[in-house]
């Protein structure tokens, strides 16, 4: 196993852990706002790690650039959509969770 493979394996596994944590958060957290918090953090960091892990294996710079572009688009869309969902939930009067 060459160092590149080791690096991308480590990055991919780290990304998968973030995805798992996000999924558990989505299923276990008490209300829509905390669930959004869990899933967007996991998406952003988890996908970032996966993209980095795959970019290490990319054969050309263009390939790595495309992967990076995908991550940037997901960051933009994820942040905006979670904001919109949270705003929609607030305007519909869904109360914030209190312990």
């Amino acid at each position, binding site marked *: 196993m060459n160092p590149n493979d080791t690096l991308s394996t480590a990055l991919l596994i780290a990304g998968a852990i973030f995805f798992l944590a996000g999924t558990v958060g989505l299923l276990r957290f008490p209300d829509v706002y905390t669930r959004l918090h869990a899933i967007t953090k996991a998406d952003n960091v988890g996908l970032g790690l996966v993209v980095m892990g795959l970019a290490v294996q990319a054969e050309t710079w263009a390939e790595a650039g495309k992967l990076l572009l995908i991550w940037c688009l997901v960051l*933009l869309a994820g942040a905006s959509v979670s904001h*919109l969902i949270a705003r929609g939930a607030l305007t519909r009067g869904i109360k914030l969770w209190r312990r």
Partner: protein
Amino acid sequence: MEAVTLLQWTFDILLGLGLLWLAWQALTSPDLFKGIVLFIAFGLLMALAWVRLDAPDIALAEAGIGAGLTGALLLAAFAKLRTVKTNRDIAEHPEKGKLKNRSLQFWPAALLLVVAAGLGYAVLSLPPYATGLSSEVDANLNASGVSNPVTAVLLNFRGYDTMLEMFVLLLALLGVWSLEGSALTREALPGPVLNTLTRVLTPMLILVAAYLLWVGAHAPGGAFQAGSVLGAAGVLLLLSGWRLPSNLAAMPLRLTLVAGPAIFVAMVVLTMLIEGRLLEYPPEQAGILMLFLETAATLSIGVTLAALFLGGRPQNKNNKEHT
């Protein structure tokens, strides 16, 4: 190697079971909204399944049209259902709905039986073993004008299939337009975030659509994938409260909608005159003719999908009330 194969088998089995489970849940869910969300998830898993089958063209189309735009259409229909009172009417007068149903039950059932019998016959009459047509496609790829076999099949060897698909899309839109007089303006929620997102994404989506259209000649991509991306840009614009200017809503919009089918028909006539056979291009000009055809098809598909999302027919008379 062994471990990798085992992992792939596990993934495929989980994917197949997940698809079946999602399909069942989406169909049987009493909550319509939940059903729609499950259907979108089903479409995304379906795209993954196509990737596993080495069919990235179909995976792109499934993710774009099957999950994305169909999901948006279903959600838009759901939002309209809540405002229309037919559900409550039926709940208040159940006997009316029942009577209608009973008299209409026989014919759909009979029709379904005939279709099922025909499908069964078609499946049973297939040869038990077939090599498929991929070797013939490969053999004739040089004459097709493109190097992506999927595009060669869709636009050249079986171009009439794609032409009929264009007409199906147009007919669907005509059906929607004849059901509802004018487009309802739903109260838009133009927050700064949605506005910024739309401003950033719309030019990028148009660029991606052009890229998919161009790359379709030699890699996965093509008119339907590009059209769905263009349609997504339209949906995003409509969601952020944008409406077609009234001077474009009449003739220009309708011309764009029929451009794809019309140019297909023109190409059919042209190829019949030149080569004497349906959609058989002269090999030297095949590439450029197909690009022309696909460009028109992409525009029409994108605008049709966005117009389907809008719902009713955009009117140019009472536009002042809406804006």
